[in-house]
């Protein structure tokens, strides 16, 4: 056999390489081809005509070409199998469907688990509250009556405008104290200092205190909405609802 050496190289390179020339199956034909399984006669007959073209490629690339030849030959040999059996090509694609659907199910499970971790209901105190009438607040004063319950300072300026400062230090989140005598907010954790306007001027705080949305409710009371806050550094203090002008 002229291509005997090439086939031998292919045969020993890939143990699963089927014999691609029609004469291979008999183990005695070549000692190195013993590793290949013995095929049925139907398979051998079916692959005979195709052997000539496939052999050349099999010489250089044993496993893939052999693998490609095998299902093709197997499909031709499928007619020789029993009725309930699936061919090798059919088996592979069935497995593909199975694996794809398994992976999709796993992915869906992962997405569902991720969504599970975000609660729909929060047992938190109400985020909007009425803070009384504007008249209850002295002009030029910082009011701390809602600091404990809602975490907000209500500041009224000389011209009557009212705003609500978020009582969370912009350094690492502690609650600052209003020091009336020194006319400043001072954070007990790391010493950040803020003016009554909320602007930071000393300590590690990187930016001013934030303002909560403040509007007038229908009954004339001040309504503070903690779900929206306005930051100075983004220029949001010029927005209408960061300040209540009465």
């Amino acid at each position, binding site marked *: 056999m002229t291509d005997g050496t090439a086939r031998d190289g292919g045969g020993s390179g890939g143990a699963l390489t089927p014999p691609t020339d029609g004469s291979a199956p008999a183990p005695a034909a070549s000692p190195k081809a013993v590793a290949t399984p013995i095929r049925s006669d139907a398979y051998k007959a079916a692959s005979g005509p195709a052997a000539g073209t496939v052999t050349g490629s099999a010489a250089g690339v044993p496993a893939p070409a052999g693998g490609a030849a095998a299902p093709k030959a197997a499909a031709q040999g499928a007619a020789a199998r029993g009725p309930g059996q699936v061919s090798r090509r059919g088996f592979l694609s069935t497995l593909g469907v199975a694996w794809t659907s398994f992976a999709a199910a796993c992915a869906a499970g992962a997405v569902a688990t991720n969504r599970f*971790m975000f609660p729909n209901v*929060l*047992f*938190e105190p109400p985020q909007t509250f009425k803070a009384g009438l504007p008249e209850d607040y002295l002009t030029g004063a910082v009011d701390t009556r809602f600091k404990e319950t809602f975490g907000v300072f209500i500041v009224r300026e000389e011209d009557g405008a009212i705003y609500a400062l978020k009582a969370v230090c912009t350094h*690492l*989140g*502690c609650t600052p104290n209003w020091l009336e005598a020194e006319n400043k907010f001072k954070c007990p954790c790391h010493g950040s200092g803020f003016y009554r306007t909320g602007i930071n001027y000393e300590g590690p705080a990187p930016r001013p205190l934030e303002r909560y949305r403040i509007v007038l409710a229908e009954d004339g009371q001040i309504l503070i909405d903690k779900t929206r806050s306005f930051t100075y550094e983004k220029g949001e203090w010029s927005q209408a609802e960061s300040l209540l002008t009465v």
Partner: protein
Amino acid sequence: MLKQLWEYTRSTQVWNSIFRHGPMDTARNRGLAVLSNVFLHLHPVKVRKSGIRLRFTWCMGGITFFLFLVEVATGLLLMFYYHPTVEYAYVDIVDLREQVPLGVMRELHRWGAHAMVITVWLHMLRVFMTGSYKPPREFNWNVGVLLLVLTLLLSFTGYLLPWDQLAMWAVTVGSNMARATPLVGHEGPMAPLMKLGDIQLVHAGNDARFALLAGRFVGAGALLRFYVLHCVGIPVVATILMAVHFWRVRKDGGISGPV
């Protein structure tokens, strides 16, 4: 007389059903005593002499594992008296000291945690000094780094459980880091980009920090979530990784052995 009793016990079916090896007079039986025991066989039957040289190994890895077991045991005992709710958490910790017998279980758990963090760093240092991260042991080094991170996360989640001022503010500060994460944090560098027109896709109510705390600030949700992570979530992952870690040591030549 006692010897006869012993011999008799040895011959009973009850004994032989439990212990599948003979008396430890042959090398085979001594090997089987380890191999046929589910707890002992995680350890190799024989170790090299260099494996028990304290100068080589410092035994820090083993001590860390021992401390992990101590933490599991003391933690389990603490769980019998602790409710992870805002109403009860702090008073339960006080009661564990004042009312519960021995009164020192919480402290044992805490000291064990401190010690475990120290020993895990020393173990890492030893592995580095002896070059035991070099090929082919790189993967095991990475598994070890993951275990280190899990140890620190255990410390972080456990810290919240006493629900005192230290706990609440430490976790507030720590979890605030999550809101600065790119893409999934509402104050991260790409937060202004995460919007569809006027609708903010990632905000304080659905970012990574929200998922961690189950809320917008450290409250009841965070307490329960950290409790579950601390007692079940992270230990399960850590156990799996420890199994990989120990297995890798054995397969790569045993402790303190050449590849």
